[in-house]
């Protein structure tokens, strides 16, 4: 990460707070389906937005801060699932970041969500030591594609509507 101005840092902090709020509120919603691991993943809107608006390094910082703080609120084993899913998602987003254009940001989110679900299932298999849990992988991937498409389009819309308010480059 290059030199981070106070403005940039503040902006990252605000984005982290937004992501954390979304994450905590979403955790309070009842499960969408009686299948472990299915959720909207709305907090990923912020991650995708940050990758494209601020750059991968700062997005990683926001993502890690959100996962660590979010797991504090959620408690239990959440941190393992969130970390594995979040890192898989981030890596895939990073690879695609170079490959997609401004109108294809949703692709990052879809692929990232699938990677997130795959990472989560891997942790679930490791923790329960029961390969039978893998039966849920295709269902989670379907949900990942659909929710990833939704959050990706949200992020893309946000990026196109917030060009000036995005990364603040002016002097503090």
């Amino acid at each position, binding site marked *: 990460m290059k030199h981070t101005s106070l403005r940039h840092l503040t902006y990252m902090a605000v984005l982290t707070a937004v992501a954390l709020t979304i994450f905590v509120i979403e955790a309070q919603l009842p499960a969408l389906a009686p299948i472990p691991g299915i959720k909207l993943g709305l907090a990923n809107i912020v991650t995708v937005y940050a990758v494209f608006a601020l750059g991968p390094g700062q997005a990683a910082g926001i993502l890690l801060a959100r996962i660590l703080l979010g797991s504090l609120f959620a408690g239990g084993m959440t941190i393992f699932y969130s970390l594995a899913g979040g890192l898989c998602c981030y890596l895939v987003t990073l690879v695609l970041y170079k490959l997609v254009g401004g109108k*294809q940001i949703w692709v990052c989110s879809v692929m990232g969500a699938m990677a997130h679900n795959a990472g989560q299932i891997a942790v679930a298999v490791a923790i329960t030591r029961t390969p039978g849990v893998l039966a849920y992988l295709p*269902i989670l991937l379907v949900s990942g594609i659909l929710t990833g498409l939704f959050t990706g389009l949200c992020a893309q819309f946000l990026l196109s509507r917030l060009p000036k308010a995005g990364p603040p480059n002016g002097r503090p």
Partner: protein
Amino acid sequence: MKSTKFWIVLIAVLLCVCLAASILVLGGKTQSTTAHLYQGGALVRTIDLSQVNEPFSFTVEGPAGSNTVQVESGRIRVSHADCPDQVCVHQGWISNSVAPIVCLPNQLVIQIGGSPSETEIDGVSG
């Protein structure tokens, strides 16, 4: 940079493959009537659901609290869980589904059939 069409086709293909696999998993039926309870990967209890005449329930203790497992003739469910998300409770009764009941906080998995010993017995009797 690939065209948007490329990505749409790629993701549509992925979606179709995953949908097909999901339908196989959700619609899949096992011939077995034996429920296996795993906790942390270890088989803790085996119940032949076809042999159950009187409904009964028991409690399984796990790292995050307890699950109450209810058994009736031919079906099994988690009727109560200490965890906040209650995913395993909402999964409801299973009788011959391929997809197992999973309680991640308590590392509890209830699966019908699918254990190696089960296949072995089937192989011998079949």
